[in-house]
């Protein structure tokens, strides 16, 4: 699947179980997404492939970023939910770490489906690997379908504005658009605020070269101290806040929704502030 041989996949799967620690196999067996005779769900999510592809992510999770996850009990064990967090770090390792936390440090595990930008399907390999791991393009139709099927979605309202912001703006939340709130209201699902501490320092960007971004049709072209957007081994601390329930109409005026969105944004900011206060050092 996705160009990776069966033998390599088996090895990766064993590595996943090893990195996941004792009981990982039993926990992962509780993941039972719908599968057809080709082993995939209608979106192309393949849980076997996920277990293989998770290995390098788990290595980053356990050994490189040494992630500490707090409040995972706030992520519901079943049923739909919307995880809403801050986005940073030039490359979306934060999304991968949130997903890894829900996969190996939560019992029962949840396969979080991150919503990706619509330029991801234009990327070779990335598009395929993401799809097999359950990531999908964040169109409103996709979100509605997945939530009504009881899935957990991960949303970064800041999008690339947050992901590729310069170092000087670390831990300053960018504008949160209203789409995720309309989605939550329309489907009556809880929002779990997520604060990712650490990713904001992993790849300090000093410049955003817009002409190059245009040339490659990337949303941004950040230049970091090292020139490459590769992350430094910062320690991640991921804080999952208490579920927030909102009532009202998804078709309310923007002003009404903005108030609700501000409460979520404040909750994320609160998690970040608390996490920063607790943290003693960026790297450990």
């Amino acid at each position, binding site marked *: *699947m*996705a*160009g990776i041989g069966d033998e390599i996949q088996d090895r990766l799967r064993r590595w996943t179980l090893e990195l996941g620690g004792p009981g990982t196999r039993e926990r992962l067996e509780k993941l039972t997404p719908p599968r*057809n*005779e*080709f*082993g*995939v769900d*209608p*979106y*192309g999510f393949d849980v076997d492939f996920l277990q293989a592809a998770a290995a390098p992510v788990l290595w980053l999770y356990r050994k490189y970023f040494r992630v500490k996850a707090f409040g995972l009990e706030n992520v519901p064990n079943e049923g739909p939910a919307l995880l809403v967090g801050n986005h940073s770090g030039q490359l979306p390792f934060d999304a991968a770490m949130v997903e890894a936390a829900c996969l190996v440090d939560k019992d029962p595990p949840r396969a979080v489906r991150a919503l990706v930008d*619509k*330029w*991801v*399907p*234009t*990327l*070779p*390999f*990335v*598009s*395929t690997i993401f*799809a*097999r791991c359950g990531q*999908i*393009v964040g*169109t*409103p*139709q*996709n979100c509605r*379908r997945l939530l009504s099927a009881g899935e957990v979605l991960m949303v970064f309202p800041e999008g690339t504005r947050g992901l590729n912001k310069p170092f000087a703006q670390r831990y300053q939340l960018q504008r949160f658009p209203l789409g995720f709130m309309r989605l939550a209201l329309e489907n009556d699902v809880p929002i779990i605020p997520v604060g990712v501490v650490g990713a904001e320092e992993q790849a300090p960007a000093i410049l955003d070269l817009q002409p190059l971004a245009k040339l490659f049709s990337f949303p941004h072209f950040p230049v970091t101290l090292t020139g490459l957007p590769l992350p430094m081994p910062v320690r991640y601390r991921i804080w999952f806040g208490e579920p927030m329930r909102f009532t009202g109409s998804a078709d309310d005026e923007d002003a009404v929704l903005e108030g609700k969105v501000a409460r979520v944004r404040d909750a994320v900011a609160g998690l970040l502030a608390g996490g920063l206060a607790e943290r003693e050092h960026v790297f450990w």
Partner: protein
Amino acid sequence: MRALPASVAITGIAGNLGRKLARLLHGETRVVGFDRRPLSDFPKDVEHHQLDIRKAQVEDVFRRGGIQAIAHLGLKHDPREDADEAHSFNVAGTQKLLDIAARHGVKKVVLLSSANVYGPAPGNPNFLPEETPLLGAARLPGYRDLIEVDMYAQSFMWQHPAIETVILRPVNIVGPTVRNAPSNYLRLERPVTVLGFDPMVQVIHEEDVCRAIALALRPGVRGVYNVTGAGEVPLSAALRELGRTPIPLPHFLVRPIVKRLFETRLSSYPPGEVDYLQYLCAVDGSRFIRDTGWAPRYSIRETLRSVLARSPAAP
């Protein structure tokens, strides 16, 4: 289930799908065929008119009365044919036919469109609903006729509320006798793929399509419907199922190469179709299922494997 109309006209009856549909309906209703091609070894009671649907004699047949429904399958998709002639045949032909239908008391028109009218695109949702704009021609000019015909039928639906118009947009039709781009592609021993891309694809068996058309011909069904088969499969898994050895080409080379192969007639795969190997164009078929109780008979595996059967008549 409500009975089929007492007589059904099928355009394109001599095509592989038309013949299948005629055989399916013929036991239950009177079948009247229209095609420029002759119809050989068929039951005597199937009335065939070897006519171009743009010809005035077509209306004579309707004037004699009795035709209650039309299944319009007679559209040309051959990418090698003269575009002007195909356009006139497809679009002007459909307009003429629908005009005749409105004047001569036809109660039901079923147009066989295609889910390809939406077009593959990186930003597509995983399951396109019927309301999606028909952008398929943006990069695949070959679909311009089909989109025009589909939209013409939509406006016909509003202009003639008394006639039950049904537009069916089935996913890739695959089967032992069909010779369209997706079936031909699956028949290749060494198909070209786009390196690093593996979209989910949807297929439907040719017999299931005929059953869907028969369902749409029954009274009470009206509207625009996506028609899906048993599910979705990654392109790579479909090729593996058929034992193919794909030739993956990088996305920046695949289009020029496929174009050259097509121009030099080394392959019959139209270059525009490469988008289908790279991006999603899958549809949500739940409306047809909900409104008509549609259920395909063939599984994905059976549908894919059906292309392996030796075709009885290669044109």
